[in-house]
């Protein structure tokens, strides 16, 4: 007999729908107004895009296993957002160069993370946490605390507005779907993706099967940094302003989104579709807490506790590594 199992991404989507329906019952929820409900749902998915893209890098390093994690993601988002802001300075023509710089700088930070983890054998937690401090310091040094710049009109047009006046799908959502397709291809249709799952499951087997464990691992961190840099670019395209604490609030929810999406925190198993579903769940929880009109400080506490509960719940899946 085959056991009936729901795959984690599907479970996360079901959770999201249930949470959304519940949010309608709140005193100041959308109630029975379908139009409001749809626009609210659209808005939540739009907000989930930024968390989702930032969680992509996290997905890669968590799949790479052996306590893989990227705690520098928050500060990389801030750094690349500021760089984008400064480089673009309101010029449409500078958008592509800014995007490339954001990706390259993110990749560089990730590459250094990877070198430290593989060659200096620093645990990913310590390495990336230290890197987070370095990047934050670098932001302050470069900008002396004040930044002048501006995003370009085309960024707002593509990222924040609907695709077309009569189609109410935000541009960011379309970008996210294409991005999801890219991530799926990367994980499931490239040698790198296959090797990444292999090193996350068992590095001895991987090495004895001819996988270059070291460079696959470094590649995972560098790529994660690049994807986070892209995340920073998108974030500033949405907010239109930058500040030093811009990226940090994304960090912990991103890790939680990966876990909720069914990626094993011990590595070797997972998908980006799951992370996308997880990002929607996490965004919903945040908006739910806002709708409940909690004070900022209480909201932070509740959110933190919820994230811990989710991670501990999902982190309990047994690793089959022996």
């Amino acid at each position: 007999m085959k056991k009936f199992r729901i795959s984690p991404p599907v479970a996360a989507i079901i959770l999201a729908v249930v949470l959304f329906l519940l949010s309608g019952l709140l005193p100041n929820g959308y109630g029975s107004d379908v139009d409001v409900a749809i626009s609210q749902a659209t808005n939540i998915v739009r907000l989930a895009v930024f968390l989702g893209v930032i969680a992509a890098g996290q997905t890669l390093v968590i799949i790479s296993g052996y306590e893989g994690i990227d705690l520098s993601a928050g500060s990389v988002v801030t750094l690349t957002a500021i760089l984008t802001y400064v480089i673009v300075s309101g010029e449409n023509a500078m958008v592509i160069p800014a995007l490339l710089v954001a990706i390259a700088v993110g990749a560089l930070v990730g590459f250094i993370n990877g070198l430290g983890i593989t060659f200096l054998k620093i645990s990913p937690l310590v390495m990336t946490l230290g890197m987070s401090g370095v990047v934050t310091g670098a932001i302050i040094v470069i900008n002396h605390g004040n930044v002048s710049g501006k995003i370009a009109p085309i960024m707002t047009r593509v990222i924040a507005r609907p695709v077309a006046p009569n189609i109410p799908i935000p541009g960011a959502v379309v970008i996210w779907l294409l991005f999801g397709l890219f991530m799926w291809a990367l994980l499931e249709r490239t040698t790198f993706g296959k090797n990444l799952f292999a090193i996350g499951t068992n590095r001895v087997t991987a090495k004895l099967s001819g996988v270059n464990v070291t460079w696959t691992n470094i590649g995972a961190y560098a790529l994660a940094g690049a994807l986070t840099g892209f995340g920073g670019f998108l974030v500033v395209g949405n907010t239109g302003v930058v500040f030093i604490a811009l990226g940090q609030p994304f960090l912990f929810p991103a890790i939680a989104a990966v876990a909720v999406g069914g990626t094993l925190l011990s590595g070797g198993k997972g998908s980006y579709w799951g992370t996308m579903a997880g990002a929607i769940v996490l965004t919903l929880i945040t908006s739910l807490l806002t709708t409940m009109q909690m004070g900022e400080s209480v909201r932070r506490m509740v959110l933190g506790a919820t994230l811990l509960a989710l991670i501990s719940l999902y982190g309990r899946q047994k690793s089959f590594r022996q």
Partner: protein
Amino acid sequence: MNVSLSARNIVKRYGGVVALSDGNLDVQSGEVLALIGANGSGKSTLSKVINGVVVLDGGQLLLNDKPVQFSSPQAAKEMGISIVFQELSLIPLMTIADNIWLTREPTKGLGLVDRKIIEKKTLELLSLFEGTYETVLSPDTVVADLPPDEKQIVEILKAISFDPEVIILDEATASLDSRQVQRLFELVETWKKAGKAIIFVSHRMEEIFRIADKYTVLRNGFTVGSGEIKDVTENDLVKLMIDKESVLDFTRDTYDEETMNQKPVCLEVNDLKTEVLAGVSFKVREGELLGLGGLQGQGQRELLLALFGDIPFKGEVRFLDESVHFRHPRQAMKKGLALVPGDRNREGLLYIRSILENLLLPSWRKYGLPLKMKKSISDANQVAASLNLKMAGLQEPVSSLSGGNAQKVVIGKWLMRSPQLLLLDDPTKGVDVGTKGEFYTLLTKLCAEGKTILFYSSDDEELLGLCDRVLVLHDGKIRSELIGDDLNKESLVSASLGVTNGGES
């Protein structure tokens, strides 16, 4: 003080595997009993039962003629039974003194550890092996800094530190040099005089005849003989250890040395050295199935790993008339080598990943970008079918397979690359009888196709049944090379144990 220990009809099963069917032994005050047997005969299991490390499934232990049951090693210790393990039970980052007195630290008031007494007692113990140390040993030396022989000595000191009545030495001499062995044997003599009973588990015949008074031989989990050492010879013991009737029912082609010698050399190894191997040289010709024999842990594993580029080595290796020195398995793999490692789950498989991904792991690069999945699936299906792999589907995880089928996946992932030289590290361990037969057929077939196989097995029967030529390793060296008529059970076991009966050494 008199002590006696008897084991009666001991049975021990691990899951479905019977490790011990009928284990018996008797030992008394002032005696050294040698416990002897080939690989997997149940020696270690019997000593673990006596020491309380494993709980017996049947039979009885008698201490001073009274039935006893040990639920833990601690319980056995309290009754005065102590064991020196071959795999060390020391904590590397703690000092010698801390290791020896762990859980039994002498204390003064308020439960504080009395460092002075510990130091004094440790110095007394260390003085027992005075003069055999290369390094300066003090109670504060950290165990991790010691060479293997001195670690073994600390292990011995730890076992005797609480003055036990029965001492089990499980391969305790394996890593000691001759001076240290001499000192240990002098100590054993004093323990005998003090009325202690000693059980000596060893593969070294020479030592057994030097120190033991009595012997007990185990074979396939049964006690098959015991008596006084003075009544037997080395060859008598070897014969007892061998099961005459069970030689594999598998016919190999008659070995024609001349035809074989005309074939080109596939692999030539000259003076290969690693931490474990002390200079190994040999040649294998194309289409040959060369066996590696010997007791476990004599360097067979290291030889295969070094050839595959997984561990560093010194020496010269020529593969297909080309000098090679692989530094990563990837390089070896590209040249046409393949390794089936000894520990299937830890080294051979991605346990939670699918059968498909396991089969294709070394080969993904051949399938382009994006990966041609249809092609990879049909290739994998082809190999799975040729191996008669029983599975629910390629997408199922490897963890859903039985041991034999999982091993087929490990072999299958290399067959997908059609390698020239296969290095096999005990590939039939934990594999059911039916699948073993399939492997034998497969190996013979591969050789007939011109592939070369280097095959280590812990099962002597397999080597005898399959190989034309067997190199027997002992202490990191090739002890003897057995060909044709010289290749029989007796010569194989003798060579493994380091017994020299007239032949070359």
